[in-house]
């Protein structure tokens, strides 16, 4: 995917490599790099996902990182239908109407 100058993009920056991390953290965390993700407008003329690039953030900061998404959106949801929770409504309403004794 190609991003051009001015496109809204997401970058990732390795802020601390695993060997630069604090000593007092769990081992599983220490094995990973400490990364930042920030969105902004692409400053370079043309870049593809995976390239190193520079963005201008909403607070006018220029920062460098690896391009990981172009026009990033939000698609988080209300989750799946969960059969496990269906009893709660029935139970509460029956108890409240006196129809069900615990």
């Amino acid at each position: 995917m190609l991003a051009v100058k001015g496109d809204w993009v997401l970058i990732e920056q390795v802020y601390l490599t695993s060997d630069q991390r604090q000593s007092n953290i769990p081992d599983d965390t220490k094995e990973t790099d400490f990364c930042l993700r920030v969105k902004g407008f692409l400053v370079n003329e043309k870049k593809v996902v995976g390239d190193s690039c520079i963005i201008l953030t909403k607070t006018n900061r220029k920062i460098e990182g690896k391009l990981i998404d172009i026009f990033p959106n939000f698609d988080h949801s209300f989750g799946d239908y969960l059969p496990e929770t269906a009893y709660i409504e029935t139970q509460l309403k029956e108890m409240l109407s006196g129809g069900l004794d615990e």
Partner: protein
Amino acid sequence: MNKAQAILDRKHEILRNSIDVDFLKYKRSDIAFDYEKMMEETGYPIEEAIRIQRSLGVGSTPMLELKNINSLIRSLSKPEKGARIFLKDEACNLSGSFKARRAAISVYHAKKLGYKGVMAATSGNYGAAVAVMCAKLNLKCIIVQESFDSMGIYQPEIIEKARAIEAYGAEVVQCSVGPELFVVFLDLLKQTGYFNASLYSPYGIAGLETLGMECVDDIRRLTKKDPTAIVVTHAGGGNLTATARGAKKAGCDCPIIAASVDLHGLHMASDHDFNLKSFTTGHTGFGFPFAIYPDRSDVIYSAARPLRYMDRYLLVKQGEVFYMTEALAKLEGMERGPAGNTSLAAAFSLAQSMSKDDILVVQETEYTSAGKHYNAQLSFAKSNGIEILIGDPKGEIAGTTIVLPSKPSDIQLQEVDLNQLRRSYLRQQLKLHPDGVLSKDDLIYLSMECKVSVEWIVSVLMELRGE
């Protein structure tokens, strides 16, 4: 020297430039500082906080009696038992939570001092709250949040919080798991020269005292009585501290009861455990460490000092809070939370042991949405291999199972031994000052910090030192 250490070494200087509180002015010894003087000289008087909040569209939220839930409580209680629960619908604030109160005062203060922008380190509702106030007062805003694990997987609730922050025009800096977030925060404060709208500053606390006062005023207006107790979801300690202080300023000295979701067994700084939590706040991963050591925060002396105000501390399980979240929607028509409903789940259990004449206040709700909704959280938990069971929530193991109570009477709070917590607080003090000789002033300070007598402090310190 590595980059992180170089920034941490400048911590005091950076924090001094990003907030106008001269914390060290209140230092009395290596252990003690003058908390009340700091609050008096640097916060805002409550009348002024109310005026500022009104001008920013914050506060005066509805206080609602949960009549159907209260009927259910009575049906489960012994005769003459079953307190009435009233719920302060803080989701009605701009940005959808009580955090708007804290943000209003901090951002107003930043504007007054002439800062060009504001920063906050938060993965919670506070981010959107600060973003809203910065939008209203025309300031730049950066929120730094812990968001994703090393696989790049985001906690859905934190995705929603990032969405809201962006919706209000602020910049979000998202971090992978780990305490180095604080290094990034300091680094950005240094680069931008923005104001540190810390949750732990006197402004953040002053802004929330209005909630404690409103809770008391509302209950007096509605019932002609004082609240018997106020239940507060507890994490970093600010909510509890400020609610207690506000209630006292309204002339009410009722017990302040903390409630957290029990996440024992999950490590808060573990990359592996990060996405095994179904709650991002209001849990023991913040509640215990911030009670034991309040000054672990992003200011020199935290204005949030929970053990000073905590009368009881109750734990509930994730499954219990989810059940109550569903009950609030289905019985009261209020789709809220879930994290804000932690105190509601605790109150539901507690009310059954109280007199039917008692009034129990649950002092907050928060908005719900995609990502935050308990359905989103349970689905995410399942996708991470966590089993969703129906049964006795006492058997829930955080990170492995979520147990929805098979019936409402299975919601049973667990009481934390506050003296154990106080001992841990003192142990932490001894660790920080191993050779310190404690003066009489230090002992008085510690007794106020722990809400116990000086004699208790002396005896526990002797025991801990093996004397």
